[in-house]
């Protein structure tokens, strides 16, 4: 069914065909509805938006910026993390900076190199681990720490329906329901001063919808992919999901919608009451020492031992 007499540029999984104007209204409407339905924003917020320079984070930033211009009680700024991935992050960060300059948004950039002494590229030379594992741990760590320093009330991210769908399946396939209890449109089980709640306004927007919006609103940069992404478990789950979606339209919505119904039960089962803190860095964590501190320690030890490693005798 067509929305009007204008040329349709998007067809939703349930057969609605939308023109440019109606698509923009549809996507923005969906984001605002998500914000209301899951109570993502309070009346007053000092909101941070975590951006990478990619289409998802720029889309969420541009929509929230508009919201904040209409509502002076919602203040926003942007945060970007420079993991130190040569040939990739430098380019996306330039896009992020350009976007923020143009739209008059304050951008704070924090780097692994400055905060931990090593870039991700350097860490991966020292430790034999999956790139995305440590990349994610350090990113979440920095985002939470810096959000507190900046006195942010919440942190919005560009996670979309596809991202969530992948996470749900990944956790199931690894039997990690505790991790699933930490998913959902609003992350952070309790409001706690140690943990800045994260919100996902694009929670119900499919990746194809976000890309369409970014294209129509000139936020789609040339294609850019992290060199580490290809090997990831997530990439394999993503491809599998897209095959299913092509055969059975609406699969991703079904997975996320059924997950939303399950989430309260998961949260109840895995709620741990007050958030524990790491005995070394005081950041929130589930064990005595947080994952970031564990990996930093391993990096330090490995770096030292590799320096004093005896040379082979015949050398």
């Amino acid at each position, binding site marked *: 069914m067509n929305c009007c007499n204008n040329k349709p540029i*998007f067809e939703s999984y349930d057969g609605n065909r939308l023109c440019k104007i109606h698509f923009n209204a549809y996507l923005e409407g969906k984001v605002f509805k998500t914000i209301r339905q899951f109570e993502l924003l309070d009346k007053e917020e000092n909101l941070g938006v975590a951006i990478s320079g*990619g289409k998802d984070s720029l889309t969420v930033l541009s929509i929230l910026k508009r919201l904040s211009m209409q509502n002076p009680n919602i203040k926003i700024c942007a945060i970007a993390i420079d993991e130190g991935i040569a040939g990739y992050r430098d380019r996306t960060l330039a896009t992020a900076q350009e976007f923020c300059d143009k739209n008059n948004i304050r951008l704070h950039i924090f780097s692994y190199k400055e905060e931990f002494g090593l870039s991700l590229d350097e860490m991966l030379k020292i430790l034999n681990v999956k790139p995305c594992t440590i990349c994610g741990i350090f990113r979440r760590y920095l985002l939470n720490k810096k959000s507190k320093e900046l006195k942010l009330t919440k942190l919005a991210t560009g996670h979309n329906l596809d991202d969530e769908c992948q996470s749900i399946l990944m956790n199931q396939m690894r039997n990690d329901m505790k991790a699933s209890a930490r998913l959902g449109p609003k992350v952070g089980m309790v409001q706690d001063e140690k943990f800045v709640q994260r919100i996902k306004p694009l929670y119900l927007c499919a990746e194809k919808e976000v890309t369409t919006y970014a*294209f129509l609103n000139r936020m789609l940069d040339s*294609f850019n*992919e*992290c060199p580490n992404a290809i090997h*990831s478990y997530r990439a394999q789950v993503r491809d599998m999901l897209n*095959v299913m979606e092509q055969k059975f339209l609406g699969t991703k919505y079904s997975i996320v919608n059924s997950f939303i119904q399950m989430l309260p039960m998961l949260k109840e089962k895995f709620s741990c009451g007050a958030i524990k803190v790491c005995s070394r860095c005081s950041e929130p964590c589930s064990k005595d020492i947080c994952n970031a501190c564990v990996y930093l320690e391993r990096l330090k030890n490995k770096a030292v031992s590799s320096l004093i490693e005896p040379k082979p005798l015949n050398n």
Partner: protein
Amino acid sequence: MTIKVKAYIDRENRKVEVELKGSPKVSDLMKKLKINPVTVIVSRNNELILEDGMLKNNDEIRILSVISGG
């Protein structure tokens, strides 16, 4: 009758020329290139076209990946 279209695939940073028979649609081009339409948006002259959009001889098509880069 066959027509020729030029397609640019941004994810692979690659340009291809494809011959298609009859009066082909975007979906026929996707099939020929073995691209899952769920994973891309398609544009011609900077305007988005849908899967049932008709292709013309000498069309220049851009196939843009919707996948996030990490």
